């Protein structure tokens, strides 16, 4: 058990993350075999890999999926795949991914002129923009008409279903990865910063000042108490056999979903760099709480009616078999990942906490589990954590170091990264489910 809060090293600006001290990443991450695998195969580990390396089992799985998605056989040409990732990442203003995939796009033989902006790409790709926009911000709006527009035989430059599925996976992958990049404050790669036109894209607030506060002895003991309290609540939730009326459950769900107070204050950011904005159309379209009581509001999606395990997988398996297996595995790893530790405690069953985070994220995206009591979310997730989770999931570009440091103050960084992994996967699954449901409806 390390006591890192007492002795947090200063962050080097060149480290992989603005939030997490480089030493900790190196200490926990690169000793592991998966990391060295990455190092050897890529020649170097990029910052995402280094941060994710805190959770090697997940990293291995993530790498497999990403490789299959971007490198291996699939219906879309390699350069197109990178271009789609660029478009998707640009929606969340993630210049890290945009830069990374721009060079990959050129390496894959992509046409340089496309990088001048989305208007230079072929119309077929441009048609994808609506879907991209919806997937990124309001996936619940996606209907079969959106799919039909792209797939129907009459359409010019039409998409085949197999291509579309791959594009959808690529986009959701990029969106959720953008969440991760923002959520963990990933620094731009060294070669990216050399680019003069590029401004540092990750949050630049000095994290040291924020963290400095945590050194205060009194706050520290407060934090220790918070952990104890949380653990007690978890025990309680697990044992609790009390029953609630139907209405109570629904209200609880709605309450979680519509806590719009949690919207982050608008962080003043420097103007979006051109290298990102040129890939964005309709930049004002962002996440918005839908009012479920409104007349034309889309109904809540019930997890029991369209679940990944039953329906999503079956459809994906039909259209893009190998990816279905990989994603299934990735979701499972992400859901099951635990070290039975919590801050300074070990041998803790964290399943309720993980479940609460997962369900909270999907709840923000309008997916409801009939068999889950959303009161648990309220009990287990402190307010600052909710703010952080909701921001990273819905407005990742607004994440600040302050948010990162204000929740779970006594937890390890690796545990916060763990939250990010859950976030990323839950978010990706939610968006995928909406898209796949629309495709299913189109097909029937």
């Amino acid at each position, binding site marked *: 058990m390390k006591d890192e809060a007492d002795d947090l090293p200063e962050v080097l600006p060149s480290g992989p993350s603005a939030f997490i001290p480089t030493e900790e990443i190196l200490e926990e991450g690169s000793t592991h075999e998966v990391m*060295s*695998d990455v190092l*050897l*195969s*890529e*020649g170097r580990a990029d910052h995402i890999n280094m941060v994710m390396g805190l959770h090697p089992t997940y990293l291995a799985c993530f790498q497999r999926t990403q490789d299959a998605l971007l490198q291996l*056989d699939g219906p879309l040409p390699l350069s197109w795949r990178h271009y789609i990732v660029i478009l998707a990442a640009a929606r969340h203003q993630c210049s890290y991914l945009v830069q990374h995939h721009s060079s990959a796009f050129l390496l894959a*033989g992509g046409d340089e002129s496309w990088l001048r902006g989305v208007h230079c790409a072929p119309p077929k790709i441009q048609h994808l923009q609506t879907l991209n926009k919806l997937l990124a911000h309001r996936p619940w709006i996606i209907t079969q008409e959106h799919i039909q527009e792209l797939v129907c035989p009459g359409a010019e430059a039409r998409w085949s279903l197999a291509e579309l599925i791959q594009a959808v996976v690529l986009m959701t992958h990029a969106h959720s990865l953008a969440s991760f990049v923002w959520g963990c404050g990933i620094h731009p790669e060294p070669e990216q910063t050399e680019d003069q036109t590029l401004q540092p894209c990750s949050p630049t607030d000095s994290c040291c000042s924020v963290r400095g506060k945590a050194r205060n002895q009194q706050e520290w003991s407060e934090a220790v108490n918070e952990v104890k309290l949380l653990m007690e609540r978890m025990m309680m939730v697990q044992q609790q056999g009390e*029953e609630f*009326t*139907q*209405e109570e*459950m629904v209200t609880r769900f709605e309450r979680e979903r519509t806590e719009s107070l949690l919207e982050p204050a608008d962080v003043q950011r420097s103007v979006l760099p051109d290298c990102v904005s040129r890939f964005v159309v309709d930049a004002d379209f962002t996440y918005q709480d839908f009012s479920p009581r409104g007349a034309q509001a889309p109904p809540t999606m*019930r997890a*029991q*009616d369209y679940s990944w*395990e*039953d*329906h999503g*997988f*079956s*459809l994906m*398996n*039909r259209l893009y078999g190998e990816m279905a297996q990989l994603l*299934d595995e990735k979701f499972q790893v992400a859901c099951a990942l635990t070290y039975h530790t919590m801050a300074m405690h070990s041998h803790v069953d964290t399943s309720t906490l993980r479940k609460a985070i997962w369900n909270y994220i999907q709840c923000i995206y309008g997916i409801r589990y*009939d*068999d*889950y009591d959303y009161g648990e979310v309220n009990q287990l997730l402190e307010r600052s954590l909710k703010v952080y989770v909701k921001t990273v999931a819905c407005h990742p570009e607004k994440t600040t170091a302050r948010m990162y440091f204000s929740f779970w103050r006594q937890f390890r960084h690796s545990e916060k990264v763990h939250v990010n992994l859950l976030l990323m996967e839950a978010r990706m699954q939610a968006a995928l489910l909406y898209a796949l449901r629309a495709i*299913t409806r189109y*097909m*029937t």
Partner: protein
Amino acid sequence: MEKMTRVSTINGRTMFCHLDAPANAISVCRDATQVVVAGRNIFKIYGLEEDGFVERLNLRVGRKPSLNFSCADVMWHQMEENLLATAATNGAVVTWNLSRPCRNKQEQLFTEHKRTVNKVCFHPTEVNMLLSGSQDGFMKCFDLRKKESVSTFSGQSESVRDVQFSMKDYFTFAASFENGNVQLWDIRRPDRYERMFTAHTGPVFCCDWHPEDRGWLATGGRDKMVKVWDMSTNRVKEIYCVQTFASVARVKWRPERRYHLATCSMMVDHNIYVWDVRRPFIPFATFEEHKDVTTGIVWRHQHDPYFLLSGSKDSTLYQHMFKDASRPVDRANPEGLCFGLFGDLAFAAKESLMSAPASAGDVGRKTYPGGDRRYPIFFFKKPDVTEQFAQVSSALSVFESEADSSAGMDWFINTAQSYLLSGKPFAELCEHNAHVAKSLNRPQESTTWTMLRIMFSEPANPSLSTNHNLNKSGNLPLVNSFSMKEMSGALNERNKENRQDNIHSLETNLNNNDENEETEGSEGQAEYLFVDDELDDDELYSMEHDNQPAEESEYLLPQEAFPLRHEIMDHPSAPEPLQEKQESPHVSGSEAESMCLTPMESFSLISVSQQLFSPHLPPKFFCPIVKEMLCYYAEQGDVQMAVSVLIVLGDRIRKEIDELMQEHWYMSYIDLLQRFELWNVSNEVIKLSTCGAIMCLNQASTTLHINCSNCKRPMSNKGWICDRCHQCASVCAVCHHVVKGLFVWCQGCSHGGHLEHVMEWLKQSKHCPAGCGHLCEYT
């Protein structure tokens, strides 16, 4: 009771009714007169009347129905006709008693499960025993006389998808899990399962005990399979396996039919299939009524195999009659035909078809000259009385071609290897290829090449060889021997007459021809010509003016509505009568043949004319003909010729031909080449092709997987260092540097290095440069 049911159901028919909401599950009561439909927003009982469903009862009462009504599964008790149980998505298990006097029929509510309950199941003979399986990984057994569960069975945190009491063993039940396992439990021993085995990869969505065969369990999974397991032995054995098209959501054995079961799928596919497990490749019967995924299937009565009820997400409830089912077998093609790599031919057909011409094997031999019907292998399937499939014992025969026979594909390989496609002037390429074709005894192709040379290049000296080829081309052995003698005789006659008359007007000419034909009694052909004549009237007229001494070849013309050819035919140079005689039958032979062959004929005529008249026509002029010729070759299956010509002609013809068609030809040719392992040729073709889609073939799948030379384990795909043993792999044995480029290695000892280094080394020494003592050889 049973009898009554049967009587009533015999009068039933395929019928359906609209539900208000999608159904999740259905169940029938024991006497088969009522069916309960349950879903997220529906919970109703329908009566099964002779001519339709009648709504009997809506169990969803109350202003704001609770989630307890949101049913994932429903079951009607098979002993007690007033008792129902539902599994709710919020984890509640509810029982309903229809005999309750008030509107709310809910009897008991068990909320012991933490997550969605996927399945409830009543004991088949015990009135008060109910079993549930839930997403939280637990199965619970309830005694309906008590308020709580009697026992809990833990599936080790894996979600339970289905639970089923055994029909025959009082204490046994089966549970299927999301991780692909199936467990057998004894109801008296909640501490441990009796048996566990992995049935599927991915979730097992359903299972069903055979109603009669003790120990037979059918399972269906997300891996699209239905498997039948025999549990009666010590080791669980998979006895049947049916591969379906989509994840299997439900499986139900068909009553009274030992080998039949019905399935429906979770996604994509909306049909209900009834399979005979012994015939896993084609469904025995299909019900195709539903418009969305079928979620529940149940046989209406446990002893009646003819009625199937189904509920679906499309909000309909159907009763399917077995007699109305479609039988895919009837639509299946019972014959199969396939060529082997070396020209062998396998043919499978219904045995009845095969046995008849058993003596007529001669026919077969003639059709495949040089072939030998060496093994007529017969696969017999013992006719099974219980099996209701159409009698389908088929016979498989294999026709083997002799190695040196012309039926083999040697010509293809030789041609592919010897053709020149680029690197020389056009005329030389053509000449070369013509020679190649000729030497391989393929005169038609040879002539084509010569033609092309003449058409598209500056007029060369009329060479004798061309003429020679022409004669040969006339002798093509391609014609069906169908009444050839007669025809040629007839034509000969005609020719003579025509010449004598030297008729100028085509119409009269044709009339004459008609008369001739009539007198000679081959009416069919006469008609044929006549019809065409009408069609081509105008052109024929114009031709007349062009050239008065119309030759007998004009008779051939009307058959193709192809103006160019007529014009070319205008100046034939009085070929030798012999040649004519042989050509004519080709053209006016059987319809099909003539259509295909005429282009060739016209070419030979062109060439002759070219020799005599200097070519006034620009190369472009020939494009339509060449295009047709290429199409002809491709149609005949000789894509080799089509593609070779396409490449050699290059820009001269490319624009004339549809891009897609070109691509199609290229793909076929490349595929053929690769099947014959002619990698170099195939690569050359890819390189020379002008289609974007083809050229990028060379850029795909360029990954080469290698193992580390030190630890012999697979290398990751990038970098020079093995990630396992951390040493440089692929080190040159001569200079001991990492080889980044062409690496050559000995197949014997697997040592190697830079191409130049190894070449040099082996010039001086016979031994391996690595010093392993192997005598390497560089060829």
